């Protein structure tokens, strides 16, 4: 995303609450108009603080935030015109659904008729027309979620912030709402900044994902890149399931590193973040990229099957590979796979480019 058409820009932003530790360390990010960007990270990683700074509830200790080219550090939250959906929805409990939706229009001095039209359209958008006269307390979690969404959109902001909006819903409803939010985003063309700690939510909805840890963005890229090509061990661990193999770089030829593993065996891996021969490294290998048998690729090993879990579409095997007891192999449940038994020793293999040599943790 080029800087000149960036809609939201964080420019060298730092935030500290106590003057001793930084919660957000040197954050630089630019979000394009119409983009769906997710800030993903474990709790305490600084992602919510970033969102609150953008909304105007926290002041950056250093640096500048720009919205549509304008610095907004000194603009109070109510003049930023940013829609926001809160984790607990924050629907005003003493107002009906229609009054809740009408509130942002009233404070903008919009006339009664226009207000009613907009409220009705916003309710239609989330298919909640018949609930206009209910109080929020009379709605289910999912319904409250939709109303909160409608309220954040009713005054037609260009930017909408969402702070873990689906965290309180059950799994099925959450997945359903993910699609609804995604479709709304596509239809309305708004820019969305979304905060979550749920990686599948981030992968489902986002154009780009910023993975936060320890106040720093570890990687900012598309969902596909993030999963397929993690740039460091934290991202590899955090996104999806991952097999770790510790080792030491023996040789480096082009982008292929030869690594000596803990059990002494040599294996080849794609050098992504290694410093050179002699340096420690952590190999990252997705469980579904490991094949039973010898047809998977150049790297071969023997696996002693320790545990099997039948999961319908695939079988999840825990095995000992290169001395690692926690090595997971996902075997697709198609007709051709060889019979697996616990205690059995089988050859396994994987391709060099699927095994990424990253920084040691």
């Amino acid at each position: 995303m080029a800087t000149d058409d960036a809609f939201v820009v964080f420019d060298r932003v730092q935030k500290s609450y106590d003057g001793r530790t930084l919660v957000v360390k040197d954050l630089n990010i630019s979000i394009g108009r119409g983009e769906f960007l997710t800030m993903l990270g474990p709790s305490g990683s600084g992602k919510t603080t970033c969102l609150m700074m953008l909304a105007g509830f926290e002041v950056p200790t250093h640096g500048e935030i720009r919205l549509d080219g304008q610095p907004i550090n000194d603009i109070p939250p109510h003049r930023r015109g940013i829609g926001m959906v809160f984790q607990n929805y924050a629907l005003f409990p003493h107002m009906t659904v229609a009054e809740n939706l009408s509130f942002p229009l009233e404070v903008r001095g919009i006339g009664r008729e226009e207000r009613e039209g907009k409220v009705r359209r916003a309710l239609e958008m989330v298919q909640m027309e018949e609930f206009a006269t209910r109080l929020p307390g009379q709605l289910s979690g999912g319904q409250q979620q939709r109303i909160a969404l409608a309220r954040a959109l009713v005054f037609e902001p260009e930017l909408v912030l969402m702070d873990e909006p689906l965290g309180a819903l059950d799994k099925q409803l959450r997945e359903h709402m993910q699609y609804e939010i995604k479709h709304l985003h596509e239809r309305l063309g708004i820019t969305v900044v979304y905060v979550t700690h749920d990686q599948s939510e981030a992968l489902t909805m986002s154009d780009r994902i910023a993975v936060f840890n320890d106040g720093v963005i570890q990687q900012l890229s598309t969902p596909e890149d993030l999963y397929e090509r993690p740039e460091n061990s934290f991202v590899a661990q955090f996104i999806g399931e991952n097999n770790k193999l510790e080792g030491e770089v023996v040789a480096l030829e082009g982008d292929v590193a030869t690594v000596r593993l803990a059990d002494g065996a040599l294996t080849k891996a794609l050098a992504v973040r290694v410093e050179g021969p002699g340096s420690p490294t952590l190999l990252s290998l997705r469980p579904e990229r490991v094949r039973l048998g010898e047809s998977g690729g150049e790297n071969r090993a023997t696996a002693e099957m320790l545990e099997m879990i039948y999961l319908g579409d695939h079988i999840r095997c825990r095995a000992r590979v290169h001395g690692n007891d926690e090595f997971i192999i996902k075997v697709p449940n198609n007709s051709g796979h060889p019979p697996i038994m616990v205690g059995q020793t089988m050859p396994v293999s994987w391709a060099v480019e699927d095994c990424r040599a990253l920084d040691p943790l």
Partner: protein
Amino acid sequence: MSQVPADPHAAVVTTAGGVEDGPILTVDGQPLDEALARAGRRARWRAFLLVLPLLVFVLVTFITPIGQMLHRAIYNPTFSQNMPRISAWLKAHPDDPPTEEAYALLIEDLKEARKNKTIGAVATRINYDVPGTRSLFTSTARKARRLKPPFGEALLKANRKWGDPRVWTAMRQAAHAYTIDFLLNALDFTRDAGGDIVRVEPERQIYGKLFLRTLVLSLVITGLTLVLGFPIAHLLANLPLRYSNLLMIFVLLPFWTSLLVRTTSWIVLLQTNGVVNDILVWLGLIRDDQRLQMIFNQTGTVVAMTHILLPFMVLPLYSVMRTIDPSYVRAARSLGATSWTAFRRIYLPQTVPGIGAGALLVFILAVGYYITPALVGGSSGQLISNMIAFHMQKSLNWSLAAALASLLLGGVLILYWLYDRLVGIDNLKLG
């Protein structure tokens, strides 16, 4: 279950526990509701036994005294019990002027009352209604043995006041043990010589003014505690725990100090040569001969009572505010509301249960407050409870005290009802 469902499968469901079209039975054929009642009975009895001591306590120490007080406000048998003969005659001849027979009965009663040493109580009772008649009864009772017929003239000779129709009206009223006269008195009404209800002379209309003053001062105090308590409660609810605990101690500190100490310390502060006046003089804001009178008047009552009742406003407000998620105000701000609009339209309405509870609590306490106005109120800062205490302790007119207290209780109940109608009592949150 009274209809037999058309669907045969549904019928199976309803008859699974019993017969169709009748009460549902348990598997061994007992009616289900009886079985349920039996199952719950033991637990209910145990629960009842647990609250029984409190129930008895409340009954003995609360319900009974209040019932007694309400009763005493309309029931005073002093005259009818101690002067039975004349009382009976007056009741039998409600409209007749006193006859020779009545005078004879009166003298008979006076003699006996003197012998029983109850003449003082009788005299006091009539004295409530016609001031200055106490000695009429006691002195006539002393002479009663020597009075000879015709008794009418003899009585008049003994004391000319026996010819005063007001005395006879008062006796006529007092002859009835049940009377609304005390309630009338408490509302500044009385009976004229003919027995009709009239207002008392303007200079003796004290209770109406006192009720009004009590109401106004209580409202002022409630308003002040709200204005002062709201920000404190908000601060308490939003500070980090370690600071809010400290602040809470300061709020509760008055509770741990004797009421008497707190009230007298206000005297030290506010009196003419007190700390506040000294500082004002020292600052040059007032001259030494212009020292403000801030105590022993209404100002003193308002200041001291506001201070004492403040925690009763802060605590319910705090408990409500603590439950209001800060994200509501944030949401309002993000939706475009200024901080003032967010406060007025989002925060304030959510604190209404706390405001209601605090205001009701403070108001009801203030209406019945006694010690503080007595100590710092002077004469202009006295409330109705001080008058009730006066009639309990000094004038010993317990029936009038009871009548005043009953009216106070009735007034509070009416306000409580009004509150329920306007705000809704289920909107109340005390903690």
